[in-house]
């Protein structure tokens, strides 16, 4: 009999299994990640280096988020995984299955009943509540990386709170396009100290980062960084007095549920290039139908 067929790991007795350690990672790795998470929460917005492990999925598929989730999971958790707001896309489905198999936890599509939500590039439309944890998958954690490629330099810039370069970048946006054209991964400042990359969420989601009731954790696997925004934390999106930050979405309504306030995905519906718009948050849309 193949080992995978002999699954003693049932919902009735979550401890009786012999295939994986709970939530895949070994205990020493979890402790190392757990220490990094606690320091990340104590220093909101600061990127804590951690020794990222190789995961059974490629970089760019959420290995950072998966490691943070694995280190926070308890058997009593209900996990939701979204990719660009959708519960049913490849990345979301495979990560959900990964934790069903290795941690035997319950999963859900419902934002409200999830205790941990792992996300790629969106914050759910439904407001999060106290006790929930939102875990972001992060490709490039360093907001200054495209302006200054050297880690030694960006580290000094963070230490000295030297963020003038970021404002220059936003200013150049205005000189080229007449407005701040950065539409996603829009830089934020956390608790008036660290400039942080909120991962490539649309800037439409940026206001939800501020004073959120849920704990927000960010994991970058390839880049080996963990950072955090605790609940009820002040988060501002960088801007100028005369060019204030403006969240942005398509000027349309969802063609499935009719929402005019949610973030929309554009879909091409025929060969003539006609467009239709649907909610990017599938669970939100489903509930409104």
């Amino acid at each position: 009999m193949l080992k995978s067929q002999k699954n003693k790991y049932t919902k009735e007795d979550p401890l009786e299994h012999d295939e994986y350690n709970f939530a895949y990672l070994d205990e020493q790795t979890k402790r190392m990640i757990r220490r990094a998470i606690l320091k990340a929460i104590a220093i909101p917005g600061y990127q804590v280096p951690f020794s990222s492990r190789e995961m059974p999925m490629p970089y760019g598929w959420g290995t950072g988020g998966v490691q943070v989730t694995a280190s926070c999971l308890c058997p009593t958790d209900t996990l939701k995984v979204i990719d660009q707001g959708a519960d049913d896309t490849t990345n979301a489905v495979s990560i959900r299955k990964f934790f069903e198999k290795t941690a035997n936890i319950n999963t859900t599509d419902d934002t409200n009943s999830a205790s941990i939500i792992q996300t790629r590039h969106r914050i759910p439309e439904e407001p999060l509540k106290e006790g929930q944890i939102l875990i972001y998958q992060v490709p490039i954690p360093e907001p200054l990386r495209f302006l200054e490629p050297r880690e030694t330099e960006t580290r000094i810039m963070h230490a000295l709170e030297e963020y003038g370069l970021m404002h220059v970048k936003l200013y150049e946006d205005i000189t080229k396009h007449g407005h701040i054209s950065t539409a996603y991964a829009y830089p934020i400042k956390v608790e008036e100290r660290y400039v942080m990359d909120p991962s490539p969420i649309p800037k439409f989601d940026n206001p939800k980062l501020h004073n959120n009731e849920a704990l927000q954790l960010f994991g970058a696997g390839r880049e080996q960084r963990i950072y955090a925004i605790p609940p009820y934390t002040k988060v501002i999106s960088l801007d100028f007095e005369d060019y204030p930050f403006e969240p942005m979405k398509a000027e349309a309504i969802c063609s499935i549920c009719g929402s005019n306030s949610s973030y929309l995905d554009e879909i091409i519906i025929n060969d003539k290039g006609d467009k239709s718009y649907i909610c990017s948050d599938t669970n939100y849309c489903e509930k409104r139908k």
Partner: protein
Amino acid sequence: MNSSNNLYALENPEIENAFFFRQALNAISTPGKIFDLSCNLNTPNGLSKSAGSLLLCLCDFDTPIFLSETFNTDEIRKWITFHTNSNFTEKGNCKFALGNWEELLPFEKYQLGTDAYPDRSATLIINYEKISNNGTKLFGPGIKNYTYFNLPDEKKFKNNNSLFPLGLDFFFSYENKFAAIPRSTRIGEK
């Protein structure tokens, strides 16, 4: 607290440590809030269950521990070594420190982190009988509006917060109870 001859502190370490960590995570993301640890954990004489749970889910061979005089007993040292494989060291080198309030002072002796790496700082686990939600007013990340906590010495914590992003992070533990005050918490009137 159990004086235990039981070899194992936990029945299913991977599960219990997950719950212990989740409590620690909740504590540090809601500073000042008091948590109750309800579980079976065999700790040696003098070591509270809550402090024991923190050591088990966070410490290993990478985290030298400082034990203050009261806690530097054979029994506690053996328990920590057996379960975590941590080394023991002085205040200046430790990642975690465990002790009574007066014995852990002064804060200046510990690693406070560096400007480039503020995370390289010590976490103090203070054995503190008077954990309660009255006394000093607290503000900051993780706290909705404000909360109160009975700090042993307001001024020292205020000073620690003023070093932000450097500084120490604290857990207060007594028997089953524990609470956390990270360096980001602002102390006193707004």
